[in-house]
């Protein structure tokens, strides 16, 4: 770890923690309906929208009605994104004349964006029209974090209220999330990105004349446009020479902004945040990282504020930061150490004033090691999944970090809304375990944790590993699962494990060598994303309803305080132990096996 890298990481954490409180305060105000003066001018728009919907904002919902509204809203998102992809050939804003996307890929992408996953089987610049990007995908980039926010606010209300049947109004929570939080931040951030060089236009792709002519092997296609293959199945190529480069265009910055703010992660281009038109400079990169974690971190303060004890929120945030720093250290160390196989070839991987050194395969010069490892750790702490470096090319331990963080359930900051509700579920489990140890009925925030609550929390903890490990097992047994793998050996297994982990965790990053745009993966991962999102939200809302209905009991002598360092450690231990017990065997077959074999090769040299 270089001094400059440490300085940049320190600067990042200071900026994040400094912004968490004001942002958290602001969000608490918004959801409590006390609009701060500087956004009151937007309230006529809000009220006008409710008139259109035919909704009264005082109309409170039970948890079942809230869940139903959430499901309808999500279903419409799937239908709209699916339809836009299938029909884009007939619709405007398609200067590159892209045709319809295949049904299985459209299904996968529709689920992917509705669930805040943004797993991308397609390459944006060669498949999606500008209309599909901005009115389909980017709209879901607003809606899915808004839904996440609504659900976590409902859960917070469950803890904050007592002896009531209702947890808020879904339409009001979603509308306020978009209008007062996501949209204003996006406008400002999008313009900041443009100032750094991110593009924002509706032009067709620009053809430029390159300095040097380039000769390459061009795959031959037959009259129908299909690649020609020789007798052994390899594509036939012919020499071609070009002095043209086609620069992709489009409304990138506006989509990039909400992609980060909403922890969505779906890039306009295939290369995501490593693409110079998405993330042009170190400053744009710093802001992307900040925006990605701002709302998830700030929600901890919002939580404390709304339950009437900000220490509760700080305790949760402290647990998140501590777990994060531990994982970050591993990723930074492993990537800076580089690839021992390169050293043997006479390659200089040492950090110096003139190069960042380390494992630079799949990384960009302007970000170097420090910012690539930091981004990778952040994007998998959150359920973002944007990447500014290719995780597939990380060292085995460097790649283990993102995989392990998603496996923990993305509760370290986590996705917008989904991170905090995941962590609160772990808090419920932590007080339950502590209660078992001292033989008392567990309580959290003055609410007794009873059988129904523990069942709901257990569902949230158990469903993801069931789908991840089950799906991975299925894929490695099937030819359709194995043929998609790009790298040999243990790394190939990691690619499959990462795909299912990322889908269920609604992360969306990938060990991207895997060719997942196939009927098998589009379908399997589509369902994995769907259940990984909705099967968790429903028990969370059920827990919210159950909590809201309970009496508040005053703390007694046997009550475990949930704002102390002791509880922070208990929470960390619960997260790590549950995660480790579930996933260590699978991690052993993938990244850990690869690390040991790399270390062994190094010894032989």
């Amino acid at each position: 770890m270089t001094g400059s890298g440490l300085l940049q990481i320190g600067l990042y954490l200071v900026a994040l923690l400094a912004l968490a409180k004001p942002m958290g305060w602001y969000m608490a105000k918004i959801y409590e309906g006390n609009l701060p003066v500087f956004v009151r001018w937007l309230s006529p728009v809000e009220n006008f929208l409710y008139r259109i919907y035919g909704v009264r904002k005082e109309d409170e919902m039970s948890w079942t009605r809230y869940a139903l509204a959430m499901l309808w809203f999500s279903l419409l998102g799937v239908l709209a994104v699916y339809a836009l992809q299938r029909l884009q050939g007939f619709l405007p804003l398609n200067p590159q004349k892209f045709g319809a996307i295949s049904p299985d890929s459209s299904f996968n992408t529709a689920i992917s964006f509705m669930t805040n996953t943004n797993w991308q089987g397609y390459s944006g610049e060669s498949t999606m029209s500008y209309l599909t990007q901005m009115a389909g995908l980017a709209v879901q980039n607003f809606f899915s974090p808004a839904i996440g926010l609504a659900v976590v606010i409902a859960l917070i209300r469950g803890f904050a209220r007592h002896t009531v049947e209702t947890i808020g109004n879904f339409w009001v929570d979603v509308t306020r999330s978009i209008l007062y939080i996501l949209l204003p931040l996006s406008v400002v951030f999008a313009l900041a990105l443009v100032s750094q060089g991110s593009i924002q236009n509706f032009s067709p792709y620009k053809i430029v004349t390159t300095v040097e002519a380039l000769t390459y092997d061009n795959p031959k296609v037959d009259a129908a446009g299909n690649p020609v293959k020789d007798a052994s199945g390899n594509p036939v190529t012919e020499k071609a020479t070009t002095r043209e480069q086609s620069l992709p265009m489009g409304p990138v910055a506006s989509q990039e902004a909400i992609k980060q703010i909403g922890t969505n992660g779906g890039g306009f281009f295939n290369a995501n945040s490593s693409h110079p038109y998405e993330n042009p400079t170190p400053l744009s990169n710093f802001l992307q990282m900040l925006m990605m974690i701002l709302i998830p971190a700030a929600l901890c303060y919002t939580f404390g504020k709304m339950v009437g004890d900000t220490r509760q929120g700080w305790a949760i945030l402290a647990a998140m930061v501590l777990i994060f720093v531990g994982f970050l250290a591993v990723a930074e160390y492993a990537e800076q150490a580089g690839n021992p196989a390169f050293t043997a070839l006479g390659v200089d991987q040492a950090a110096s004033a003139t190069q960042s050194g380390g494992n630079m395969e799949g990384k960009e010069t302007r970000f170097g090691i420090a910012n690539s490892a930091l981004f990778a750790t952040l994007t998998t702490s959150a359920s973002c999944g944007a990447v500014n470096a290719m995780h597939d090319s990380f060292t085995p331990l460097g790649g283990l970090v993102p995989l392990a963080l998603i496996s923990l359930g993305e509760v370290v900051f986590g996705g917008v809304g989904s991170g905090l509700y995941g962590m609160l579920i772990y808090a419920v489990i932590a007080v339950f375990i502590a209660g078992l140890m001292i033989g008392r009925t567990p309580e959290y925030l003055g609410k007794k944790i009873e059988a129904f609550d523990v069942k709901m929390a257990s569902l949230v903890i158990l469903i993801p590993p069931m789908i991840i490990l089950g799906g991975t097992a299925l894929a490695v047994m099937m030819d359709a699962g194995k043929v998609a793998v790009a790298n040999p050996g243990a790394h190939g297994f990691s690619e499959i494990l990462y795909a299912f982990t990322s889908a269920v965790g609604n992360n969306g990053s990938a060990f991207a060598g895997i060719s997942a745009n196939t009927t098998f993966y589009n379908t399997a991962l589509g369902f994995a994303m769907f259940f990984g999102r909705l099967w968790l939200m429903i028990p969370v809302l059920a827990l919210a309803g159950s909590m809201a209905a309970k009496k508040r009991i005053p703390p007694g002598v046997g009550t475990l305080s949930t704002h102390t360092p002791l509880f922070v450690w208990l929470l960390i231990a619960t997260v790590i132990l549950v995660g480790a017990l579930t996933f260590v065997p699978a991690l052993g077959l993938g990244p850990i096996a690869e690390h040991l074999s790399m270390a062994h090769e190094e010894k032989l040299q």
Partner: protein
Amino acid sequence: MLKELKPAVLSFLGLTLITGIVYPLLVTGISQATMPGQANGSLIVKDGKPVGSELIGQNFSDPKYFWGRPSATGPMPYNAAASGGSNQGPTNPALIDAVKSRVKALKDADPGNTAPVPVDLVTATASGLDPEISPAAAAYQIGRVAHARNLDVSKVKQLVEEHTRGRQFGILGEPGVNVLELNLKLDTLR
């Protein structure tokens, strides 16, 4: 069951209009009015014709030019219409072979150079479009470029220094040298 369908449809349409149409058009309008250079791709124009973008790398293989980072885009390197990395894992033999042949190509073009090769010069970029190399990677190539162009080493060195970008605000990111801009400048020297 159906009671929530009506607000669902209407809110979906209303909020789609705001976030999917008004928002991107607003950002486009402001960007095009105030920052047209950046919003349209930071193009480099020479003699009235666009020859590239400051932000998008190009392929160079002639010894008289500085070479950029290896690019794994298909079917040709630096294909800006198909961004992406190699996604080769750290223990993949194909990656080790690729690095080996890149080291060899650099040594073959500059047989006298015995310095170790900076890692970014032989590893593929994440986007396949990285416009920059590290200052170390530029320094490694100064001798070759100067020799191929019959220029003083000190003259080329000075040019590289002029095109070296430090950390942003002295803190953020890593220093780099923009390969396309440097090569365009080299071509203007006679």
